[in-house]
């Protein structure tokens, strides 16, 4: 353990108590990565604060000594955002799991950051409300982690991401101050710092209390499953549905390989011989759902669907979703190892990009299973390989990288929901120019002038990515050069 961290331990114990500080190596090792296990580092020390005051005291201590800290929620992140540092403090929110308030009259909830996403919905459900952002990891992932990643879920097509559902935040800044932003009111004066904080991946401070919007549970939910011969035909159906002015709550697609995997794993019973299945969910007032479900079925048929199933009750719906929800785990069973990509393309580019991915796969001999949020163009290609085979991991990584390049080439994004973290920091310059990155850096330094909050995440650094001469810092050269020349 590096000396600067060791020196903090007695004071960390004074703040968090003996049971709130983990120094034992074996125990620290259990925190060495998030769900992207490829990146791992044993944290210098782990603290488990129980409240805002403890978090603030820990962060103040780090700030005083210039020691980096890394926030961590449930560790389900997929971009190594919570990758610890051996010279730093890992601040875990697992002991901050209280739901302070479910306020139905104002349709909001006030929670601690360690609360699991689904627990908000569980608490609100008896009142007829739920928490709309629904990442597939929602049983375990923390609301604090959702805020940091601006997480979405299958239903963000209609309901938006975490950013659209956060009303207020209490934040411990990287300087150790406690700041309240927003609250139950619909807006707050001044800059939208909540908007800046959501999605900041732990680099602007630690969220210690979160006020989220609750959404009224819909009157009717209807789910349509349509089977097509090809992903092209499925893609055409998606375009037709959107063009018809229908706004489904979710539109998901799976290709032949992922259907096969899901079939083997959970016997989801999707139509035999399908080259693609489309799942379209509609929700809202019963009259709208009925009207639009008929439109969706007609358009799917017109696009060549050879089988359509509709489900209106929760059990039937669950059966339709079963295959989709198990797809990732299922693929794990047909391949010893895989990489999950998270690129985004404009929806209209989907058919082209899928064809190009198929070509990449054919050329490299690396299989790619496609499971994706078709409604918003968010691809989750699973790049399959055998990690026992020499060189396979490298070739898979190459294919995975080439898929990201395809996304950028089509005007898309390198990440739709998993975040940049460490994993994609070096891809940022492919999407953003030097002055864009510089603007990001300005925001970061406004919050964290010392650079101790989750360093080396989100933005490329020379150490991670090599020196990039184009990235500049500080005052614009024009201004510096003309500084004396003032009217």
């Amino acid at each position, binding site marked *: 353990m590096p000396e600067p961290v060791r020196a903090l331990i007695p004071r960390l114990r004074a703040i968090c108590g003996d049971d709130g500080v983990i120094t034992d190596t074996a125990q620290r090792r259990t925190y060495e990565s998030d769900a992207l296990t490829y990146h791992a580092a044993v944290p210098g020390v782990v603290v488990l604060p129980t409240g805002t005051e403890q978090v603030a005291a820990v962060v103040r201590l780090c700030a005083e000594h210039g020691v980096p800290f890394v926030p961590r929620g449930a560790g389900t992140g997929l971009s190594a955002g919570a990758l610890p540092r051996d010279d730093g403090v890992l601040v875990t929110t697992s002991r901050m799991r209280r739901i302070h308030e479910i306020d139905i*009259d104002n*349709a909001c909830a006030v929670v601690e950051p360690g609360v699991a996403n689904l627990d908000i919905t569980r608490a609100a459900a008896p009142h007829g409300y739920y928490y709309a952002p629904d990442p597939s990891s929602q049983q375990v992932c923390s609301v604090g982690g959702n805020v940091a*990643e601006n997480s979405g879920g299958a239903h963000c097509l209609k309901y*938006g*991401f975490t*950013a659209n559902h956060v009303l207020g935040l209490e934040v411990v800044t990287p300087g150790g101050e406690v*700041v*309240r932003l927003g609250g*139950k*009111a*619909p807006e*707050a*004066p*001044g*800059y*939208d*710092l909540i*908007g*800046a904080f959501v*999605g*900041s991946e732990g680099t602007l401070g630690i969220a210690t209390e979160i006020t989220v919007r609750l959404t*009224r549970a*819909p009157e009717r939910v209807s789910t349509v499953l349509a089977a097509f011969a090809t992903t092209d035909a499925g893609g055409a159906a998606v*375009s037709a549905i*959107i063009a018809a*002015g229908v706004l489904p709550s979710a539109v998901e697609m799976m290709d032949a390989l992922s259907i096969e995997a899901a079939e083997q794993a959970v016997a989801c019973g999707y139509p035999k011989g399908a080259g693609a299945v489309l799942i379209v969910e509609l929700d*809202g*007032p019963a*009259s*709208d759902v009925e*009207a639009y479900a008929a439109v969706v079925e007609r358009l799917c048929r017109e696009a060549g669907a050879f089988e359509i199933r509709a489900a209106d009750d929760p059990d039937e719906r669950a059966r339709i979703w079963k295959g989709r929800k198990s797809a990732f785990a299922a693929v794990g069973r047909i391949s010893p190892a895989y990489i999950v990509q998270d690129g985004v393309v*404009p*929806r*209209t580019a989907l058919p082209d990009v899928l064809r190009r991915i198929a070509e990449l796969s054919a050329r490299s001999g690396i299989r790619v299973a496609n499971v994706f*949020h078709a409604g*918003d163009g968010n691809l989750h290609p699973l790049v399959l390989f055998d990690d026992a085979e020499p060189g396979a991991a490298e070739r898979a990584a190459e294919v995975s990288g080439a898929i990201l390049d395809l996304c950028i080439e089509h005007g*898309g*994004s*390198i*990440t*739709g*929901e998993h975040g940049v973290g460490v994993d994609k920091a070096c891809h940022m310059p492919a*999407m*953003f120019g030097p*002055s*864009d*990155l510089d*603007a*990001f850096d*300005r925001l*970061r*330094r*406004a*919050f964290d*002038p010392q650079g101790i909050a989750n360093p080396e995440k*989100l933005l490329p650094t020379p150490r991670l990515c090599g020196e990039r001469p184009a990235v500049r810092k500080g*005052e614009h050269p024009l*201004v510096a050069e*003309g500084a004396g020349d003032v*009217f």
Partner: protein
Amino acid sequence: MGSRRDAEALVDALGASGAALRPGGEEDAVGGCVPRIVAVPPDPGAAAALMAAAARHRLVTVARGHGTKPVWGGVPERCDVLIDTGRLNGVDHATGDLVVRVGAGTPMAELEAELAKAGQRLSVDAVVAGSTVGGVVATGLSGPLRLLHGPVRDLVIGMTTVLADGATASSGGRVVKNVAGYDLGKLHTGALGTLGLITSVTFRLHPVPPARRFVRVSVEPGDSAAVCDAARALRASQLVPSAIELDWPVDGPPELQVLVEGAESGVGRRAAAAAALLGGRAGVGTEPPEGWGELPGAPDDLLLKLAYPLTGLPEALDVLRSAAADAGVGVAVRGSAGTGIMYAALPRSAAAEEAAVDAVSRLRAAPGDGRASFPDAARAPRPRHPHLPGARDEIPGLALMRAVKDRFDPHHLLSPGRIAGGV
């Protein structure tokens, strides 16, 4: 004030940018501050060169869209160069993606017309005729549709700005789902041009719903609690209204106005259900009620804004109405009872100014999350704040806001002093 020599010197300093330049006049004044020069950059590149040159000479720039009275927020402390965004226009509509990228100087009306051709809309109300896209985003203001679709910032998916030093910075992108990098678009939305000049914005769009109905019900008894209870009941219903507006004129009972949109087969039933739920004698129509989405009162009235959690709204309205009643002045209220954002107008008089300041002081002293403010400096009591407790320093997060401003605009050259708290 624009002397010829001064203007010539500024033309020398800024001319190479390619922006058209002319001396500023009274008609260009921003809250009484006459700019020394008005610059019209023909494209984003020229806007960047202009900002860089202005920064080099430490000139204060203020952006202007259509100039529909550009002192929402506050009067900037200084204005050397007024940047007119009129030529930073153009609409690039990706129909199949339900996405549009639009130049900041484009009038909202022009954008709407373009989108309507494809049966789509930007679900933001263009509250004031003539507003530009940049002005609407920079002010971050919203109208009735906010209830269903959220504030403007929720619909922004990408933005290009020129920062104070002339650097062009983009964030977000052209896809609706994207978490790469910080969401700087949200930071610029509502920043009133104090962090950068917005040159283009990319929005997510919605299909225009096939049918709509407006339901109007007078709420009896006309007290704040009854009105707000009715609005809350609507929100908690299964009717999914797109908007719940309150229109409470000076004399006459408050009226709740509900917009339902959706499939033709359903809106009639939903409208009837809304009317039944409200229990009054409802009128149902297909056209918006008069004044829909507009500010209450007359253009010169004092204007107050209330932004409150739904349960805090009745008390805020009561404080305001009783202050007005005590002063013997009338108050007109209009706004979104569904989201808790409400505007109030008082005909300008010494008594009305007293009443307004008294109400705002009392509301600010009360605990809770809401806030009362004078959003438009031109329509605030004059002088603006003297009796208001701590108006400049009470805002939570102000130190962080200052830090952000200092990083983006270290020499405070972009509309300094305009944002709440004097940022």
